[in-house]
């Protein structure tokens, strides 16, 4: 369609909207203040685990980098993974590669090159405890495919990333944008890939990972 036709459509649509609202203004009453979120203290991990359990998402806690790496290796073994891909720089200091030394690591790459990888490892920038949601901001070295293509997914959740609920999302997204451009992709992940499209029977892993495990990083990561 020509640029001229599109410009015409734009002017028409905006004009009709403006005329309609001028003729019959839409007055919207102020909504009530957003209710204060349920507190997640004193034990936010327990709250998170309670929400994740019905989603079939185990939460495992690590008190230091060595424990985190060991947990990742345990999960890889349980999932019989022979290959993995992980986010780069942000996870470099944890010793994951050493813990997974028997597995083949695939670097961030286009989807086709990661299609046969067994395990993906990524990091949450925020965790909305009330809904068990991991917020992941993609970027260079933080590929979207890591939490999507492999059949098994591990998301590392730092203690300082724990937030009450979706009401904290605007603030978190503003932080992720601070000082520059917004991330091109932010994924909110609340459980494994699932469908109930045939006779309402729940099946995990229809397109994304069938298994998701959260490793809580219970120190100042």
């Amino acid at each position, binding site marked *: 369609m020509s640029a001229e036709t599109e410009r015409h459509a734009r002017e028409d649509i905006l004009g009709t909207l403006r005329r309609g609202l001028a003729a019959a203004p839409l007055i919207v009453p102020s909504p009530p203040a957003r209710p204060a979120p349920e507190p997640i203290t004193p034990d936010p991990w327990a709250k998170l685990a309670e929400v994740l359990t019905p989603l079939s998402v185990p939460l495992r806690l690590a008190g230091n980098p060595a424990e985190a790496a060991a947990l990742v290796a345990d999960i890889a073994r349980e999932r019989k993974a022979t290959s993995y891909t992980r986010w780069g720089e942000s996870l470099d200091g944890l010793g994951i590669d050493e813990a997974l030394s028997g597995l083949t690591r695939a670097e961030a790459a*286009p989807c086709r090159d990661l299609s046969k990888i067994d395990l993906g490892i990524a990091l949450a920038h925020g965790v909305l405890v009330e809904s068990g949601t991991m917020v992941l901001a993609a970027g260079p070295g933080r590929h979207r495919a890591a939490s999507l293509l492999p059949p098994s997914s591990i998301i590392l959740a730092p203690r300082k990333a724990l937030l009450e609920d979706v009401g904290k999302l605007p603030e978190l997204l503003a932080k992720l944008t601070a000082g520059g451009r917004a991330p091109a992709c932010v994924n909110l992940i609340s459980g494994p890939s699932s469908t109930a499209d045939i006779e309402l029977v729940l099946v995990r892993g229809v397109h994304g990972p069938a298994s998701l495990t959260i490793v809580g990083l219970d120190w100042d990561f």
Partner: protein
Amino acid sequence: MEVNTQNFRSLAERASANKRLRGVLDHATRHFQRCRQASMDALPHREEYFARARAARFNALAHLPELLEELEKNATALGTKVHWAHDAAEARDIVTGIAKAANAKVIVKGKSMITEEIALNPALEAMGAEVWETDLGEFIVQLAGEPPSHIIAPALHKSREDVVKLFAEKLNLHGEAIPELTMLARHALREKFLTADMGITGANMAVASTGSVVLVENEGNIRMSTTCPRVHVAIMSIEKVVADFEAVADILRVLPRSTTGQRMSSYVSVLTGPRLEGETDGAQETHIVILDNGRSRVLGDPELRQTLACVRCGACLNVCPVYQTIGGHAYGWIYPGPIGALLSTLLLPEDKTRDLPYGCTLCGACHRTCPLSINHPQALLTLRAREKGGSILGRAHSLLARHPHAYRAAVGTARAVDPQLDLLPRLPGLSGLTGFVEARRPPELKKSFTARRRSAAKKERS
């Protein structure tokens, strides 16, 4: 898809006689209602959250032209190409133009009502592209050559046995159990995602303040469609824009709960422009197509514009006794249930939707269930009044109905010559009366209670 709304009456009659369909609908709608109720019961401050979601949507409608301009400005600044379309034909032209320019041979689609509304697939196929619906339910109905039958569960009407047969016939894939069938679809579609040149999705919301598109799903097919192909096209109708992420948060609080009873859907993607330098996945070219298709006119109508606030959670379908009886296909187009009867009537030509506003018992269950308090019955009554107000019979009936004495006199006269009111409509020149009389129950010939009381009192006195 073909518009068949003009046959709503006959389709509804046929569907309501289908016992198997009614069994499926009963099971499914009860399931969705149970999930939703449990989730809502567990949500503290529910009314406040509903009010906030409602305000987010209605504020967006109140500032729609400014928000669309802001969305365009911010999305364009980050490298997304924004397009505008008056109607379905223009939107199809835009998307096929993008596909041609990208030399797209394989196209994957996320579940989207808007692409059904503009009948996009045949247009893309006509230019030689392979188009794959990737939501499992949509994939099933695509293979069956049928339209979706529920806003959030497109293949609701299909049994496991239907899917077994379909996969064997169309894909030569053989499975029996539901998890096995699901995995067959996963493998078949995974290959398509990896070879696709272009991904097409709708948009649950578009955020004016950042130029982002927000997509909500459970399967991951939308993430695949926006992560693997090099081009992503998001098609949105004008009303999908919201001001900012405060509004997104307020809507996300109630949308998944009202849809499936989840606190949050498995995946919510916030996409803002093409991938950044150094990223290895995500679309390198991004487009947003803003479609009107009659909605801008609806915004100027104070009685009907509430329809545009809908977030497509589908909860109104599940509680509707009409939908529970006839299912989605009987509505004759892509939008079923109370919201479908409204949207179709507002978006399609008048002569095709005359009966849709009558597909409602006015029980009000949809209004009570809608997280945004859309008053579907009130809006449907408005449409009825307008439709009937347009015909001579309707205007005459309306005039008489407002004057009870005149009404009684007219019906009394008619009854005097034709006691069953079955002969008059057959007279030459009065054929329009048949449908009119069939759809109404004129008052019986006996006197009103007050008149009978008065006459009894008079009798007593005398």
